[in-house]
């Protein structure tokens, strides 16, 4: 194993559980409040998102994409205010003006969710430029999917980051999958050949392996901090079957940690994903098999997180809608 302390690993696992239970609550809310509509859930990406959040230091910045909820929660935004935003309520992180697609929280360094493919990578490059100009020790994180590499702006941003030596960590969540319609169509056989061609240091990690991702992002962030130059990390992910759901549903069921040890009980169309690609179940197994934590400890942690999310949901649902006049405020600073 990695030599990391039990506390660090458990802290990561707690973030992962928060991310997962948050998304499951979003599915329930979407089933109940019809209008919140289409959600791009971060289920299956928790190991990556938690690892990125743990590599961040106070003052660092991050920009994210439509698949943003996990990052919002992992970086420490209040889940109640995040639910309230997704429901368009007054206490939402964006006062109801943004919704799921634009969650942000300046207090955690989460500067924006751009719902435009290609939006986050260039904005985060700009954030790195701003930090560098101001002589800050901080770095910038760009979260994006493989789809961003379809966009021309991606190449321009990578080139700028390399030319201007900008402290930005590019986090590419590669969940593209042949068979279904892939989320990107790239002639490049390996994604990393793209940053490589632009002289950007690059790495690859199993994005569903909590320990590997945590170690990788700690190292990568350290590289960016010490060199002031960009680093590109490709995180390989097996796409969660509900990642493009039109109607809210639980295609792989509600997460049950016990299934980590009762594989024979897993069945159905998506059994393979649950058995080998769910980062939460993988981490659960790793904890118990290495003797780092017991099943009961993990179950107790999960119960606490579940209660937290239940309270957050209650807060959000009790929040009123904003007054219609709010639509017209805040157009200008």
């Amino acid at each position: 194993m990695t030599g990391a302390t039990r506390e660090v690993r458990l802290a990561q696992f707690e973030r992962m559980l928060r991310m997962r239970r948050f998304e499951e609550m979003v599915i329930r809310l979407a089933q109940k409040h019809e209008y919140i509509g289409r959600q791009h859930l971060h289920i299956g990406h928790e190991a990556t998102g938690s690892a990125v959040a743990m590599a961040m230091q106070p003052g660092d910045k991050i920009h994210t994409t439509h698949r943003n909820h996990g990052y919002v929660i992992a970086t420490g935004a209040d889940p109640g205010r995040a639910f309230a935003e997704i429901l368009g309520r007054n206490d939402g992180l964006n006062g109801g003006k943004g919704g799921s697609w634009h969650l942000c929280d300046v207090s955690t360094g989460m500067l924006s969710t751009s719902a435009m493919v290609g939006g986050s990578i260039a904005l985060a490059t700009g954030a790195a430029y701003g930090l560098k100009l101001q002589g800050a020790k901080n770095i910038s994180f760009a979260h994006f999917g493989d789809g961003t590499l379809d966009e021309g702006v991606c190449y321009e941003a990578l080139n700028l980051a390399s030319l201007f030596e900008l402290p930005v960590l590019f986090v590419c969540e590669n969940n593209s999958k042949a068979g279904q319609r892939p989320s990107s169509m790239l002639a490049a056989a390996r994604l990393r050949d793209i940053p490589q061609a632009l002289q950007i240091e690059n790495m690859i990690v199993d994005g569903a392996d909590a320990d590997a991702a945590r170690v990788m992002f700690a190292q990568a962030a350290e590289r960016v901090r010490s060199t002031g130059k960009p680093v590109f990390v490709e995180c390989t992910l097996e796409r969660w079957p509900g990642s493009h759901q039109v109607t809210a549903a639980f295609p792989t069921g509600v997460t049950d940690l016990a299934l980590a040890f009762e594989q024979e009980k897993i069945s159905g169309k998506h059994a393979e994903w649950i058995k080998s690609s769910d980062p939460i179940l993988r981490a659960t197994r790793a904890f118990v098999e290495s003797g780092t934590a017991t099943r009961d400890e993990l179950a107790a942690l999960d119960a606490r997180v579940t209660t937290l999310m239940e309270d957050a949901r209650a807060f959000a649902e009790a929040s009123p809608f904003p007054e219609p006049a709010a639509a017209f405020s805040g157009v200008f600073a």
Partner: protein
Amino acid sequence: MPQMNLAEALIDGLIWSLRKDPKATIIGRGMAGHGPEHHAEDRLKAEFASRMVDPPTSEAAVAQLGVGAAMTGMRPFVHYGTAVFAYEAWNQFVNEAANVHYMSNGQIKAPVTFHLFHGIRGGGGPQHSGSPYAMYANNPGLEIVMPSGPRDAKGLIRAAMASDNPTIVMQHALLLGLTEEVPEEDYMIPLGKAEVKRQGKDVSVIACSRSVVDAMEAATELAKEGIDVEVVDIRSIAPLDVDTIVASVRKTGRMVAADETYEICGVASELIATVSIHAWSALKAAPVRVARPMTPVPFSPPLEKAVTPGVSKIADACRKACGR
């Protein structure tokens, strides 16, 4: 005559375009949207899969794929699932496609059709609710059509595909399920011809796209109050059918301009300017504008409603124009 929803009708228009012209070709997927009407696309795929290509998320280059191919004589239909995605192709639309014919002194044509789903759609929020056709209309060289129903969608798409100019078809995302009788056979509706969708004598609502549908509903409501509304669907902002618009306002003496682009420099403003110039003396009251107020479209449902032009705002505007 068969009943078709708008998605089916636009697919029918595309099928006829491909049947009639071997140079017609399709770049994009999801032409019938991703809602309950999306199956309409199956017919197209069944007949013409070999003439369709599903591109990566590369809006800028994809636009040029269309414009460049058009310059060699092809007639590409390029689809953007949400109009705002085409912001990535701003230069390609307004600076390349729009200028090709003029700056080559007529040597080269770019008969490309861009097809975009626009509009405030319920939960689209600030980045997915755009209706950029007023912005496009600020660029000479582009034809811009906004069908308000199935019959128009089919005939206008046919005409757009047959046009020698770059044409942008703006389809309101919320109208795809709208159903009416649509001729089965091939037909075109010429670009630049407005249609009086409802005859009336008290006030003219000059509108396009979804606002036509809203205006028809408002007219039914106002009839009960004794206000007889005429509804004119401009169908295209470029070219603009000034004669039909002016004739209607000359007849009623009152005007409401209703449209979902922004108030400032928007389609409604242009319509009011047009009428002021050409029919000033016929106006019995100041024109009234119903348009998108100058604020981004908020996500929260009550806020979104507050910024959406709609039936009740159009009805109120008609009452105001009529001094009620």
